[in-house]
């Protein structure tokens, strides 16, 4: 691992030197690398297998307080030099901004060490993964069910050097596992889903999730229609993670504060949701499951930030520029630039504090309602100031009557103000004690840890 770091740092230093030579007053170079084995399953067979080796360097050059980014996958000396020159030439052409940019200096204390590496996971190849899947696929075939999903593993690395002396490196393994079990034709009959995003891959984890989906798919047969309306619901952690993904983006991303659309804006110190809700962002991920990332795209240590403390809005996440603009302290949450983002800060490791209840205890509070294992296509842009979101049930969802799981139900759509919904959680007993780690779509490295929730009166607004 140190050889990879040394090689990356040598390339980053080439980029810094080229940027300085091109006239930049400050230069930052970021290395993002991935060596991944990606496997997809569909209709009971492995449909796609690919190996991706990718590395990219992003250079930020600052001249007269104006900053410009350039990036390249050509990590030869010539390629890096051209990239740094592009960034510097761009920065030189920009007018002096009203809010001058200055790169952050090294943090006073280095990021904490985290356990993020697993040799066996790093070494997994397509053939071995296919061997792990073979008995799972056979079991599904025996049950006349189709298996689908993803089994992605590999190594991701992030390194940052700057002319101000920042020097940070992190490399870690990941296993992004998602399995669906389906009656055919897929999507039209019973199905179930489990997912886990963690730093280690083990056959027993794969088999355990597959056994759960197979058993649940059998229970989900012959679903019935339910009418739209308000239902008491128990949301499995996968469904909670779907909501939190949007909740973090619309409430605690720096762009939401820049535009004035965050539901937390101007409300720090004020109760914005239920008293049992405590939400943090913690890139170190404690000692629990998940995929930690201890540094951000500016090479700063990710700080543990309390966003909501017992229902009270407490803080948000910031990179160096956003913090300066909003008069806050940076928290080490720079996202860096990519296809979707031109920078800024965003929560990447949300953790919803656990409560006290087992899943059975959560279900036991429901007289008549729904147990929901997964949502589909959640969108949180309808009314961000109220955190109004919409989405649908997906895969196994069940009626719950007098605390017991009953018949499966067909998908219906919810439209709900999530701050208000979370305010209806009846204390720590409405929150599960067990937490699960889940990855995020469209955000590499995002990892949300959350328990199951009991929410009375969740609003469902239309049927399929």
């Amino acid at each position: 691992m140190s050889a990879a770091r040394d090689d990356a740092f040598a390339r980053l230093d080439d980029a810094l030197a080229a940027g300085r030579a091109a006239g930049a007053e400050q230069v930052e170079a970021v290395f993002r690398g991935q060596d991944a084995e990606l496997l997809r399953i569909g209709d009971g067979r492995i449909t796609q297998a690919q190996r991706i080796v990718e590395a990219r360097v992003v250079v930020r050059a600052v001249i007269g307080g104006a900053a410009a980014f350039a990036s390249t996958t050509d990590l030869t000396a010539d390629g890096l030099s051209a990239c740094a020159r592009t960034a510097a030439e761009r920065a030189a052409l920009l007018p002096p901004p009203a809010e001058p940019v200055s790169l952050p200096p090294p943090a006073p204390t280095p990021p904490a060490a985290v356990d993020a590496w697993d040799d066996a996971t790093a070494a997994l190849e397509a053939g071995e993964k296919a061997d792990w899947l073979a008995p799972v696929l056979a079991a599904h075939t025996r049950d006349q069910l189709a298996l689908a999903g993803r089994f992605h593993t590999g190594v991701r690395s992030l390194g940052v050097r700057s002319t101000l002396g920042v020097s940070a490196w992190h490399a870690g393994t990941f296993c992004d596992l998602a399995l669906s079990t389906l009656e055919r034709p897929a999507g039209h009959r019973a199905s179930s889903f489990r997912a886990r995003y963690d730093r280690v891959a083990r056959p027993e984890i794969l088999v355990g999730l597959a056994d759960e989906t197979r058993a649940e798919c059998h229970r989900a047969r012959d679903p019935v229609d339910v009418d739209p309306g308000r239902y008491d619901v128990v949301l499995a952690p996968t469904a909670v993670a779907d909501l939190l993904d949007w909740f973090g983006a619309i409430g605690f991303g720096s762009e939401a504060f820049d535009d004035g659309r965050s539901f937390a804006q101007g409300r720090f110190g004020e109760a914005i949701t239920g008293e049992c809700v405590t939400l943090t962002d913690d890139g170190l991920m404690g000692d629990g499951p998940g995929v930690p990332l201890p540094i951000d795209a500016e090479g700063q240590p990710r700080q543990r930030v309390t966003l909501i403390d017992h229902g009270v809005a407490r803080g948000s996440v910031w990179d160096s520029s956003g913090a300066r603009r909003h008069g806050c302290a940076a928290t080490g949450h720079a996202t860096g630039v990519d296809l979707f983002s031109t920078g800024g800060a965003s929560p990447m490791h949300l953790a919803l504090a656990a409560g006290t209840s087992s899943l059975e205890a959560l279900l036991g509070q429901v007289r008549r309602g729904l147990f929901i294992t997964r949502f589909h296509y959640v969108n949180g842009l309808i009314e961000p100031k109220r955190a109004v979101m919409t989405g649908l049930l997906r895969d196994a969802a069940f009626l719950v009557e007098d605390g017991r799981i009953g018949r499966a139900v067909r998908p219906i759509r919810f439209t709900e103000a999530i701050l208000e919904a979370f305010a209806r959680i009846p204390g720590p007993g409405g929150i599960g004690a067990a937490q699960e780690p889940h990855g995020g779509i469209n955000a590499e490295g995002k990892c949300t840890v959350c328990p199951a929730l009991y929410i009375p009166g969740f609003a469902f607004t239309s049927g399929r």
Partner: protein
Amino acid sequence: MSPEALLDLALEATRAAGARFAEVRLVSRRRERLTFRDAALDGAVDERDRGLGIRALVGDGWGYAGTHRLDAADVRAAAEAAVRAAGATRSAAPVMLPPAITGRYATPVGENPFAVPIGEKLALVGAADTAMRASAGARRAGSAFKGSRAELSALRTETRFRTSHGTDLEQSVTLCGAKLAAIAASETDFQVRSYPKSFEGNVLQAGFEVVRALDLPGRAPLLADEALALLDAEVVPAGRRTLILDGSQLSLQIHESVGHPTELDRAFGEEISLAGASFLLPERLDALRFGADRVNLVADATTPLGPGTFGFDDEGTPATSTPLVRDGLFVGYLSGRDAAARLGRPSASALRAESWYGLPIVRMTNVNLLPGAGTLDDLIGGVDDGLLLSANKSWSIDDLRLNFQFACEVAYEIKGGRRTGRLFKNPVYWGRSPEFWGNCTAIAGPEAWEMWGWLFCGKGDPVQIMHVGHGCAPARFDDVSFGARS
């Protein structure tokens, strides 16, 4: 190493590792994204990448490897990885190999967007911001007007593609476009009005001439006035009314309720775990009534300005136009060679990859709604009580692409065949795809037909982002459900 030598080496190494057929793609991309906040440049990104993708066929299993490392040893390692990966997969049917072809394609570009000086781009956005601040609404509003946001995008993808059977293709695709938006916010509300379309704006396959044609300064004052007016506007009352969609929203309606469900891999259940499946099962082909008789939809990879236009898809199939819905009947799918062969049909030339690091999968090209007759005013003239909606704000649709719910930035009230001038905020409408398209009572004509580009269609796992197009004219739908507040 020259591109030709690199491609030859990759083909030779893949065959030597045990593939019976191989495709190699050498892809270079350049992407410029400039974002502006109140006319100040807020983000300036110039991304370039270059890499090699290798698709290897072993038996009837495909494997893929992508690498940014382009020296000989790394290319051979990628070839071996692709062949190893192929050993883990199995196709649903025997793989048929294509005949060898050669060809070239390049976007007709009037003005190279990468050559336009940044000062000129700043001046264009600055003029729009000044015009916005001079609007009557912005001058009156004080702190509720939160300023302008703008974005300019340019993307160029250059691809060399060769196969072990002798196909040799070269193409260069250039996209360019822009967005301008006005932001208004109060303590309890946030409203935005965008032009010509929300999110990335309208990004088309052309040069910078499409940005100049937008006339951002000319459209800026109305955006500010409407964003501010929406803060005080009422929400659309729940109920069923006639709906007219302009192209900025209709293009997304087409995307979600026509484009995705006509992807054949979804219909076969091969995208089920992440994206979902489709209500358009293969046994419903040529049998299911998708919409009204006037509804005709095609997947056309040859439409001028379309972001989904190309010479060849990413398995080397020449661009085609494939009917999806003819006279309201579901008649076709988006497909690549293997999937189409399972139905005994030719490929719809729709196997596309985001770049070298993604294996090609079934994607939209330009899924277009063919024009009807008349103008937008003609459509409005036929409405006694309805709403005209513009610019998407929120989108969601179920895993079979049946139940959808969209929110837009603004709804314009229509009474007695005329726009009343009243606006509603946060308009939400919802429905089921076949019933919605079945209630299409009018489509405006060719003079109102425009191409709308969407840059960020996500599909695959890991997600690949694809630029696609939807040509359409405004259309009218009866008996649509509005309002879905919790």
